[in-house]
């Protein structure tokens, strides 16, 4: 960490010393060239009804990881925020006349659970079972996905349960900040900008609306199945054809067009007495797959997206003001945004903002040196191996490529693309995208202590200020 060496020099007086200093260190070993890493073979099959299946052969353990992803996420909620979640929860309440208990038991006997995960774009049904049960798991999953019972008797309980989860989320500073932040970027009228629904809205949802959402968003042509692990291809393909082959294509997916907007805007949300300020600070950036997106990836790693990043070194290692600062890019269809997030101790929040602005500006003005930038490119290359070294990781990477319609060789060429980002490119994208007049900021914290200090920043001089109670 280039920046923290000074700490060591400064205080020489009292230091920890190892008890008997008999042992001498050997010379530091060289690190040779990185090993080659090849992604596993994959096979993709399309059925006549539009369903796509991808097989990924990986691993030695006798398990198979199955992920069925349907284009039925929150982006299709329309005005009914969270409806995709309610539908996902109701789909676990019985299917094909089988009770949830018997479905759960069946999956437990196969060594797994079936999980339903609702995301912004897709709803995913996944099971990670002992390999010999792969075909049976497919059959059971098809029942859940194709023949949900949507029992009236369970609807109110499910709704109340979802409301309870939401109420708990709203009591945490992180979700409150993220919700406000997304709304500033996309507006509350688009699902990308909708956070959590309010209780009254959710209370008004009906089972008919659940069925309507299901009918409008579930179907074979909106579904991709990923199978990863050690398994019998022929048996799994036969099971999938048998279970999903006669499913109707379903309605065409229709994602409402989204318009991302930058700032400058600063929203301050009061959490009286909070010992930390929960911060989101970001800008719209280039969409995934573009040349600038690769540059942003390296820029992000240097600025805030890795443990050796400048913002982590500064705010955490040098100053001790925060525990887990971080940054990253969030991708949506047609747009992306970069966000720095941190929970910063209240007394240090204002000075931390000064450091954040200073680090951004330094990177914009001066390209990083080869040691730092080359190290980050190496780190991203090594991280790529770890990201692709598990069945779950491979499914995530490959399905992401498919969803954003990236080139088939996106993953195979990724490391080369990262390594061809120049040091100058890094500063150039920082300068192009991290512009004060595009900045969107949310702070959830004790405004009595930090509000005035934040409002006084010259970087916020032209910003619209929104202040509210939590």
């Amino acid at each position: 960490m280039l920046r923290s060496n000074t700490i060591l020099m400064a205080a020489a007086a009292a230091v920890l010393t190892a008890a008997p200093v008999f042992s001498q260190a050997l010379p530091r070993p060289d690190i040779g060239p990185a090993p080659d890493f090849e992604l596993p073979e994959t096979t993709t099959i399309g059925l006549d009804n539009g369903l796509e299946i991808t097989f990924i052969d990986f691993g030695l353990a006798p398990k198979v990881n199955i992920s069925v992803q349907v284009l039925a996420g929150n982006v299709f909620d329309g005005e009914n925020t969270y409806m995709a979640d309610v539908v996902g929860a109701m789909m676990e309440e019985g299917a094909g006349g089988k009770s949830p208990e018997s479905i759960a038991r069946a999956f437990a006997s196969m060594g797994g659970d079936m999980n339903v995960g609702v995301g912004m774009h897709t709803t995913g049904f996944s099971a990670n079972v002992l390999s010999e049960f792969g075909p049976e798991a497919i059959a059971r999953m098809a029942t859940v996905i194709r023949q949900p019972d949507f029992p009236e008797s369970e609807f109110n309980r499910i709704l109340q349960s979802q409301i309870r989860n939401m109420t708990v989320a709203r009591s945490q500073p992180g979700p409150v900040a993220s919700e406000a932040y997304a709304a500033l970027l996309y507006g509350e009228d688009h699902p990308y900008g909708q956070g959590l629904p309010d209780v009254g809205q959710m209370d008004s949802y009906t089972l008919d609306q659940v069925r309507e959402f299901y009918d409008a968003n579930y179907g074979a042509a909106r579904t991709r199945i990923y199978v990863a692990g050690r398994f019998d291809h022929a048996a799994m393909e036969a099971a999938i054809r048998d279970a999903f082959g006669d499913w109707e294509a379903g309605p065409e997916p229709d994602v409402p067009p989204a318009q991302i907007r930058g700032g400058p805007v600063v929203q301050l949300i009061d959490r009286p007495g909070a010992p930390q300020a929960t911060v989101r600070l970001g800008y719209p950036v280039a969409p995934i797959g573009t040349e600038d997106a690769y540059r942003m990836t390296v820029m992000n790693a240097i600025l805030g997206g890795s443990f050796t990043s400048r913002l982590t070194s500064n705010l955490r290692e040098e100053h001790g003001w925060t525990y887990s600062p971080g940054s990253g890019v969030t991708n949506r269809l047609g747009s992306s945004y970069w966000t720095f997030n941190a929970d910063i101790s209240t007394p240090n929040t204002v000075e931390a903002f000064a450091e954040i602005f200073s680090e951004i500006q330094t990177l914009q003005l001066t390209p990083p040196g080869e040691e730092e930038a080359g190290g980050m490119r190496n780190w991203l290359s090594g991280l790529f191996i770890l990201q692709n070294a598990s069945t779950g990781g491979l499914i995530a990477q490959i399905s992401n490529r498919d969803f954003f319609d990236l080139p088939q060789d996106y993953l195979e060429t990724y490391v080369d693309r990262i390594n061809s980002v120049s040091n100058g490119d890094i500063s150039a994208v920082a300068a192009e995208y991290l512009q004060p007049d595009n900045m969107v900021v949310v702070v959830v914290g004790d405004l009595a202590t930090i509000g005035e200090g934040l409002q006084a920043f010259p970087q916020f001089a032209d910003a619209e200020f929104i202040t509210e109670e939590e």
Partner: protein
Amino acid sequence: MVNRLLAVLGAAALFACSEPVTPPDTDTTTDHTQTDSTVSGIQVDVQYHTLDNGLRVVLSRDASVPTATVAVYYGVGFRNEPRGRTGFAHLFEHLMFEGSENLPGGTMTNLIYNAGGVQNGSTRFDFTNYFEVVPRNALEAVIWAEADRMARPIIDEENLAAQGGVVENEVLVNVINQPYGGWIWIDLPMLANENWHNAHNFYGDLEDLRAATLDDVQAFFDTYYAVNNAVMVVVGDIDYDETLGWIEANFGNIEPGPPLPEIDISEPRQEEEKFGEIYDRLAPQPALGFGYHMPERGTPEYYAMAVLDQILVQGDDSLLNQRIVNEEGYASSVFGGINLLGNMYNYNGPMLWSAGMIHGDEYDHEVIMADVDEVIEGLRTEEISQEQLDRAITKLRSQFYNIVDSSSRFGLADLLAVFAMFDDDPTRINRIEEGFDQVTPELVLATAQEYLRPTNRSVLRVIPDPDGTMSGEE
């Protein structure tokens, strides 16, 4: 580094690195020398050596991915920290990232990241660990770096001040500025245990953390961070002889430390049910948790308790989830397990099996506990069926594979390290499934009768207190 102790509501597995970008840690391959597709019988290839200075070394080769995972475990955890210095073991872990003679400042972190690797550390009841996952070409350099950290760390007042601030912020973000912060993984063990070593706030009271001095740091290091109190594990795409050679060359000349101080961490048999309450200004809904003291690790009853854990709370088919969530709708989920700060394998001393839920405020806690009691009493009066037992064991096996089978290979390294440290036998990893296979319905019943006694239980409620009126903090 130092992963946050526990994700917000307590159910999640640990070892989420504190780094903002982390590799997904789901399942992948490990070294199964036995590669037939039978369900049972994970066979991990294990080499075990003890150097002359007492360093225990475990190696396991698996060439499926060209990386190596290095883990150094020290036999010191929450239970060992000195009175008046709660949270010190964890604070000390942070300090071990602050540099060593040949890697001053944060340069060890740079060495690992610039080689394309990741690192982290964590503090638990009975150990503190430091680990790295790197492309195999960086293995020798990482072994060299861990030796430098063990033999020649450098920690000064500024490091102590800065990391004291980081740890304080860690406690704030995970406990104090959160609803339900730490209730079931800090407060419940504090209620259930009698012995201070098991019953103190191991994340640390903020005054204790602020009071830590460099003298404390030196004393703790001298007492516990000796080479003969450490286990080193290397798993991955390695050559056995070469790797052992590097370890011997770098660690072999480190002098062993004095014998460890003996501490009594035993707990008396609990004879009366305990109750506790927490008033939480941030919690919007009440929460209810309960914990029972576990049978001793490794005994037949311990494995039977693992089966009961599966039957009661693990998965959608579990009895408490069926009753509390699906039938009664009191809560959205019931979570729990053995050792909420890890798993059923990586601890060595008194432990709780616990479960908890956030429930609707329209449901009285006594009504909910009556349902819990009915479910648990059923297991204490009647034998479970063979089908129930088989399903529980299938789930246990599958979960065990998931622990062993992660892309970082960290789960595998962890089990090898703790079995070397606690049992002097890392090959125990290949006999875990035998432990499950000896469980019978009779043993499950007998275990439930003794260990799921209401008088072996502590019940903790979290009561929403938005205005601070109930706790008198208004």
